[in-house]
């Protein structure tokens, strides 16, 4: 009935730990303005307890809908119950949660992080004819994208006997650590000669790794292939300079589809599908330049 009055959406965002995350927030704002939605963002500084607090106080404020980008898959049941009791629809953004009771949320707009890992792995397998000694730069130990992107990639490795991960360490999703870890990988694999490719759980670490490879006197993209995930502008820049080989995009525009689903739901109460999957497209150097132009202001 209150379709005319402005929708108020509370968005519990994880934080701004990476460029991608900041872009997601930015687009969420932009898309909200397009649709004349009043968006309340609460930044959890990478802490689940803060996200739960945020959801609770959104309920207390009586918003029309709650978006959550869950920092971790588990631990949402009790607070989502409160939202349900208050009849506030919940939409999950960019990460799924584990729950016995799917009715706790209306829908989830996410990519499939395990799938992302697979895509990256398949590309690498194809490139190298299934023969490649890979070093892996993991995300933060214990974080769900790190776990899933590893899982997906490992599936492919398992399928190709010629492929194997010779070294894997955590680069905490950051450039600095990515570079430091890659440096030691190169030393450890006698000057990088033993390494055929580096698989990074996100682009930032990949960018760091590229610098490490260069400083070791090798050619990133040739001597050592570079494949990573996210699709942030800098990796496209690197690709256009031939220093990176592939990235799997994770679109920062998660909120857009969510708003549409929500508005439809509010108008004629038709519930959206449980999972609105954003596709995980793989990009390669040939399109890099154009893609970079397309993105650089979204970030």
């Amino acid at each position, binding site marked *: 009935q209150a379709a005319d009055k402005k929708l108020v959406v509370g968005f519990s965002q994880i*934080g*701004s*730990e*990476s*460029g991608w*995350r*900041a*872009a997601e*927030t930015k687009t969420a704002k932009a898309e909200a303005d397009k649709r004349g939605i009043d968006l309340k963002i609460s930044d959890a500084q990478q802490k689940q307890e803060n996200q739960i607090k945020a959801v609770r106080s959104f309920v207390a404020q009586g918003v029309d809908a709650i978006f959550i980008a869950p920092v971790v898959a588990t631990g949402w049941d009790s607070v989502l119950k409160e939202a349900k009791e208050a009849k506030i629809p919940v939409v999950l953004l960019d990460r799924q949660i584990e729950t016995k009771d799917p009715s706790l949320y209306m829908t989830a707009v996410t990519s499939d992080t395990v799938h992302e890992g697979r895509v990256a792995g398949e590309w690498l397998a194809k490139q190298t004819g299934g023969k490649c000694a890979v070093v892996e730069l*993991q995300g933060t*130990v214990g974080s769900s994208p790190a776990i899933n992107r590893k899982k997906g990639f490992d599936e492919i490795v398992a399928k190709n006997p010629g492929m194997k991960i010779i*070294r*894997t*360490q*955590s680069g*905490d*999703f*950051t*450039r*600095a650590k990515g*570079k*430091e*870890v890659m*440096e*030691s*990988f190169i*030393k*450890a694999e*006698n000057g990088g000669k033993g390494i055929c490719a580096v698989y990074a759980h996100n682009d*930032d670490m990949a*960018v*760091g790794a590229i*610098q490490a490879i260069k*400083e*070791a*006197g090798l050619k990133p993209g040739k001597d050592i292939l570079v494949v990573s995930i996210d699709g942030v502008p*800098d990796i496209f820049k690197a690709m256009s300079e031939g220093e990176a080989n592939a990235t799997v995009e994770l679109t920062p525009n998660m909120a857009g589809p969510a708003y549409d689903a929500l508005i439809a739901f509010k108008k004629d109460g038709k519930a959206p599908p449980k999972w609105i999957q954003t596709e995980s497209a793989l990009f390669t150097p040939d399109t890099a330049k154009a893609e970079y132009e397309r993105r650089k202001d979204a*970030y």
Partner: protein
Amino acid sequence: MTLSAPGPSRNLPQYGALIAVLLANWLLFPDFFAIRLQDGRLFGSLIDVLNRGAPVALLAIGMTMVIATRGVDLSVGAVMAISGAIAATMTGAGWSLPAVLAASLAAGLLCGLWNGLLVAVLRIQPIIATLILMVAGRGIAQLVTEGQIVTFTSPALAFIGSGSFLTVPMPVVLTIVALAVTALLVRATALGLMIEAVGVNRLSSAGAGVNTPVVLVAVYVWCGLCAAVAGLIVTADIRGADANNAGLWLELDAILAVVVGGTSLLGGRFGLVLSVVGALIIQAMNTGILLSGFKPEFNLIVKAGVLLVVLLLQSPTLTLFLPRPKGARPIGTVKPPVAPTSGGAKP
């Protein structure tokens, strides 16, 4: 005052530990000590230890003096982020290197001043006083970068991170310079003595006429400057300012380095060189872990284990039996002045 904490009984453990860790790395990884020239720049794991250890070493230099005054500075990580963010954005906006450096250092100086004033004038407990900037500072840095990783291409700034001087990587050079300057500052003047005095007993020092507020502000300012330099290095190194992650949790490593270096958190005697050694021990450990190929899940446990051993080595309970501090000098080995100039009382 003593530049490095007095007595072999205090120095032995640090150097011993450093050597031990390096040897351990060598056992894990035979070419650990192998060094070659790569594009006119020394290249090898040992160099990595120095190079990657530089930021923490710089922080440790500043932190040592803060801790010597019985304080602590939790904001250094955030200050790194701020100076880095400023450097990257200004460079991006096309400012000249000198201007960029000046601005970043000025930022560090201001942060230090803020901390110093909170501690010395408002008498807020150091941990909390600096916690404020630790939280807000990172926000300020992100405000500058708007949450993005601001990248730049200027080779001039990048040189600070990955350039080299006489084949020695710049970060190492900068650290050595900072160490030398600081050492000069505290040793060639009476500052060191006053820092230690304030740290041991603020009341007594004030009673003896020491200008305690100024001393306190000074050390925090210096700490801020060191942090700013460290921030420049990491930014220059990755050719971009990562406001959210630059220097994250590095304050803990810095404090750790200082304590491993044998300076007491209760203030007083401090050893600059030893703090740098402490930083190197920590970095050698991290590099070793990376080279070893352990699963990352084990990183923390290994780190903690090694740390405890190093610290146990210098625990008073155990060092009790080591030879007593040097520098003990029987009275009167210095012959009294020919004519007692200071003659309130003539012997």
